[in-house]
């Protein structure tokens, strides 16, 4: 059952990613990226990360993608405003051929360390919100506070960047 779910979700994630990088219309591309994000949320659920499953749906699909879609509609990118890319697929093919040996190297490095067979069985309560909160507020307290300061800086910085200059 988990294998079938993994197969379906990974195929959706790959199709969404391929559509995202190859579609011409920006809006179609962003909507195709939603498919990838939601499939990855499902994969997190398969990997016992139930809290990250919720965070992925709320933050990525709920905030970031909606922000991107809002910006695309706000700037009103039409089909004829989109950049002309006549040899897009040739560039993609060249980059893909360059990336094949790198990917093979990383994959073979991971192949050396896979010796645990029972990957699907783990302890009870692994990855739920209680365990993650206990780790987050004991061992990872300082990075957590730094992340909150980073979010505040990003908030103030975006307001300063995007406001109109005052004419004097």
């Amino acid at each position, binding site marked *: 059952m988990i*294998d079938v779910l993994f197969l379906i979700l*990974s195929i959706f994630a790959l199709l969404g990613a391929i559509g995202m990088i190859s579609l011409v219309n920006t809006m179609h591309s962003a909507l195709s990226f939603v498919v990838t994000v939601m499939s990855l949320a499902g*994969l997190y659920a398969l990997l016992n990360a139930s*809290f990250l499953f919720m965070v992925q749906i709320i933050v990525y699909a709920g905030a*970031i993608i909606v*922000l991107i879609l809002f910006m695309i509609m706000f700037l009103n990118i039409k089909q004829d405003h989109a*950049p002309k*890319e006549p040899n*897009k697929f040739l560039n993609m093919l060249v980059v893909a051929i360059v990336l094949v040996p790198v990917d093979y190297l990383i994959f073979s490095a991971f192949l050396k360390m896979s010796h645990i067979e029972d990957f699907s069985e783990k302890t009870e309560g*692994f990855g739920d919100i209680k365990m993650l909160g206990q780790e987050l507020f004991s061992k990872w307290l300082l990075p957590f506070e730094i992340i909150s300061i980073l979010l505040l800086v990003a908030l103030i910085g975006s307001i300063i960047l995007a406001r109109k200059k005052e004419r004097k």
Partner: protein
Amino acid sequence: MIEASFMSYIALAIILFSLGIIGFISRKNIFIIYMSLELMLNAINLMLVTLSKYFGSMDGQIIAMMVIAIAASEAVIFLSLIVVMYRLKKSVNIDDFDTLKQKGTL
């Protein structure tokens, strides 16, 4: 038959990261470049969560959550920069954002 083993998750993450690099290099629309960046962050998150389950430790999931927080703040800054650049150039083509490029011969 493909099964949900450790190596298939790792292979999926590597392929998604490569697709992100391909989109990042070969496209000219700045929105698609930004979404390719997000795709690469998502692929790294998938790999972190897979390794977290493999080692039986929560650290990978916490780092993945922090990557999501950094991606959210990056989204805010990047999109406001896109608004600023669109006001200046009236374009989303990255070839038009060449203010720092030296014109003429060296």
